[in-house]
């Protein structure tokens, strides 16, 4: 694959599926500077993954897979990513959008962030409508384990929303 082809695919992915990366970034990192850092890490991994993409799954599933793998490992080392550089000195890739965000959505993100790294990934896949089978394949666990986790997470989120 030439660099130009790789660039074309990358730009297409970013154009069509950047929403997936935004959701994962927001769910896995608490403040703007770390969100930027995680976003950069994910796009680099996506760029590197392009030659391995054999179209056996959809691009969105592939992007989810690569992004979640990156975010989970990144979150595991999150203390390492504490920013030492002053925020105003940095060039940011991500900027908060001007749109008015529903405060219930903000609440939902906060609740997802409170979950552990694994449950966050299950919740994101669940909310984005992946089937148990797809989730089991992305996570590498059995469908019954996916079911157990989903059941627990759903109960937890519904309970907290009623508080």
């Amino acid at each position: 694959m030439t660099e130009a082809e790789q660039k074309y695919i990358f730009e297409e992915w970013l154009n069509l599926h950047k929403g997936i990366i935004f959701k994962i970034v927001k769910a896995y990192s608490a403040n703007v500077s770390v969100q930027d850092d995680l976003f950069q890490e994910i796009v680099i991994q996506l760029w590197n993954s392009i030659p391995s993409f054999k179209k056996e799954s959809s691009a969105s599933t592939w992007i989810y897979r690569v992004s979640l793998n990156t975010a989970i490992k990144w979150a595991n080392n999150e203390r390492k990513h504490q920013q030492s550089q002053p925020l105003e000195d940095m060039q940011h890739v991500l900027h908060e959008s001007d749109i008015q965000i529903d405060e219930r959505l903000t609440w939902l993100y906060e609740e997802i962030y409170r979950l552990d790294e694994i449950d966050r990934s299950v919740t994101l896949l669940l909310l984005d409508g992946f089937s148990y089978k797809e989730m089991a394949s992305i996570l590498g666990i059995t469908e019954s384990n996916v079911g157990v986790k989903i059941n627990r997470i759903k109960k937890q989120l519904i309970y907290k929303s009623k508080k």
Partner: protein
Amino acid sequence: MEFEELKKIWDSQNNRHIYALDETVLHKMIESKKEKANFISNTSELLLLLVNGISVVIYIFVIASSARQNIFMYVTAAWMFTCALYILINRMRRIKESKHFDRSVSGNLQQAILFATYQLNLSRAMRWNILPLALLTLLVVWDAGKPFWILAVLLTFFAFAFVISGWEHNIHKARKKGLKNLQQKLEREI
């Protein structure tokens, strides 16, 4: 709220993104990060390879140019060559493995644990390797009849390297522990 309602709230962001991208900064960042990522992941291995490789060359040069042959020098050179070979083989294996992106989260964590184990073993081996290396070097210097203060300086240097490599080893240990915890969380059926 019922789950369907939560899902509707979640879906409300699908047509309007929560972030805006600065594409110019993004492209600049990709270029610099591509280079930086390679540099960081390679640095410790390359440094070890370089140190061992250069040491072997120096030892061979000293052995070849010295009138007085010293058995400890041969042993040290052979030892360092073996270390360099060990690092090189493991590095090639690691690079080959890092090109897989089609893994599940579980498979990816297993791979990360394998890599963390490799780094842990490497840092442990390199740490304990300081002891025979220090001993052999001190024997070479002692056999060459060098003054005592040189022995003392060398001893201090090796002791310092031993302590520093212990810190590095603990970082790898903590990283592996974190990854194993993640895998347990993923596989736990609760």
